[in-house]
């Protein structure tokens, strides 16, 4: 019966005090040690005062109907748009000490950034990325109207993310990062099974590969969920980190844990060596975190949007940060679907690899 195996594997994981402590204290220590560094990193964007940006827009541009709203929202985000219908953008930027210049033609736009205003350039890029996303959404909706046939692009209020507190941003992000490393909690079970030749007992009992997989995955998820709950409470109590009040936060954290454990177990089934698995996992998580805003904030990072979107950590980070500061997020569905897909695919692959390996050994 698999429940007894799950129960005892869960006990084994909870009795591995060193790993448990590392997973609990790790994120708290990182947040405590780096909080001032996080503050400085975020301040480099937040303390930026209002800055000027030139723009030029062609009449046929899909953004033309929205320009006034874009200017209004820009003002809210600290960007003052000034119209320069003619001339070379670079020369205009130099002459007028502008941080950037926006050229909007047809369906595309180009952002010119001044080397003297690097941070402001990133803010402008992020701002326009948000505008593009929202305007595209409005176009998609108006392309398929229920009754009206004319395409209209109504000027609607553009929403921008309010400023995120650095401790909230990095507090949330570090907890997510550690969840991805959570598979080390299975180390106690895997080590003991390997060292003691326990897999032979499983083989003799005729236990299915699916059963064996679940007997590791379920307690790993449970253990990491327990660790995460304690860590989240500690981040609130010790650092006053706000996780927002959206109950979906719990679901997002749960599916993230499920996906992260599935990835970890897949890596173990590939490498069959705990040390190599942990190194591979940490490397993978580092890259996903690098693209996903674990180090540089995802809002102003230099990473391209396509790379960001590839990183599951980006989706989860974004949802949780937006829940924290806005109470809602457009990334909820994508992050949940992404993590569920990762769970299903990694589970299927792990079972497949283990079955093939067992047949090969026999």
């Amino acid at each position, binding site marked *: 019966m698999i429940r007894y195996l799950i129960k005892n594997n869960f006990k084994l994981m909870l009795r591995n005090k060193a790993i448990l402590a590392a997973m609990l204290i790790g994120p708290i220590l990182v947040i405590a040690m780096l909080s001032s560094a996080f503050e400085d990193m975020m301040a480099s964007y937040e303390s930026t005062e209002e800055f000027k940006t030139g723009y030029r827009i062609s009449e046929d541009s899909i953004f033309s109907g929205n320009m006034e709203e874009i200017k209004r929202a820009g003002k809210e985000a600290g960007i003052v748009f000034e119209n320069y219908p003619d001339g070379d953008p670079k020369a205009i930027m130099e002459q007028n000490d502008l941080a950037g210049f926006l050229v909007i033609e047809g369906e595309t736009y180009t952002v010119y950034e001044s080397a003297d205003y690097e941070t402001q350039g990133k803010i402008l890029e992020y701002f326009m990325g948000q505008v593009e996303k929202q305007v595209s959404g409005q176009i998609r909706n108006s392309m398929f109207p229920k009754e009206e046939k004319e395409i209209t692009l109504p000027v609607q209020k553009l929403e921008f993310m309010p400023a995120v507190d650095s401790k909230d941003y990095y507090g949330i992000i570090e907890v997510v990062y550690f969840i991805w490393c959570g598979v080390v909690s299975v180390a106690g079970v895997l080590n003991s099974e390997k060292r003691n*030749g326990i897999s032979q007992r499983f083989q*003799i009992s005729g236990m299915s590969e699916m059963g064996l997989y679940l007997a590791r995955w379920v307690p790993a998820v449970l253990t990491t969920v327990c660790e995460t709950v304690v860590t989240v409470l500690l981040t609130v109590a010790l650092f006053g980190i706000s996780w927002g009040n959206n109950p979906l936060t719990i679901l997002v954290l749960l599916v993230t844990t499920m996906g992260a454990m599935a990835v970890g177990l897949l890596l173990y089934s590939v490498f069959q060596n705990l040390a190599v698995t942990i190194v591979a996992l940490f490397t993978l998580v580092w890259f996903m975190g690098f693209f996903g805003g674990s180090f540089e904030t995802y809002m102003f990072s230099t990473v391209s949007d396509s790379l960001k979107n590839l990183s599951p950590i980006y989706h989860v980070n974004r949802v949780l940060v937006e829940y924290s500061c806005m109470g809602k997020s457009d990334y909820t569905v994508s992050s949940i679907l992404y993590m569920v897909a990762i769970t299903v695919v990694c589970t299927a692959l792990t079972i497949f690899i283990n079955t093939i390996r067992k047949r090969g050994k026999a």
Partner: protein
Amino acid sequence: MEEVILKTGNLTKKYGSQTVVDGLNIEIKRGEIFGLLGPNGAGKSTTMNMLCSITRPTAGTIELFGKNSEKHKKEVIRRIGYIPQELAIHGKLKAWENVELFTSLYGIKGENLRRAVEESLEYVGLSERRNEFAKNFSGGMKRRLNIACAIGHQPELLIFDEPTVGIDPQSRNFILEKIKESNKNGATVIYTSHYMEEVEAICTRIAIMDNGKMIACGTSKELKQMVAGESEDITLEEVFLTLTGKKLRDYAE
């Protein structure tokens, strides 16, 4: 006519060009304690692994309880209790938790599982220590716990792979007595060991393997007669050395 519980037909296992088990034919009847002897690298462990469906034979057949073990794998392996040579227990689980975990793998649950755990611990004399972590046990206690983990589902065929390695005489004697007791209670036993006196003391029949082949099989008395004629003034160890030679065997099994 006594029921044949295990029968192999030309059982063969090859790893690449190396033949580890070579056309083995064994027949074990219900109620026997069958000893399997052989020097290192003789093919004993591979044979055991094939009997337990851990390793698939390259050729030949295994019939367990009258059924082809390949075709009826799930059904037959649940009637076997395998006590591996290495201690297959979790050090960070308590004695009863180890027994519960490994007994539950055979589909036993609830009250039946609780009873099976208690009986198994009682059987190996560890009831009093049921709440202690296995890592704190002595070598002999770990060996006994290793046995308890394999008998909770009340198997009809018990396979012991060198169960007395590295333990004190008291624990060894206890284990041997328990094997005899299990046999009296109806279990058939396959037993491998390098300790000849143990094998001679408990086994009803003994097979000697070398280079993957069975080179002799019979009762202790028959094996002695085979080597020394009617005099029988010879130990089982001398029989073993005469049949397998005195040359050192440094194979890894």
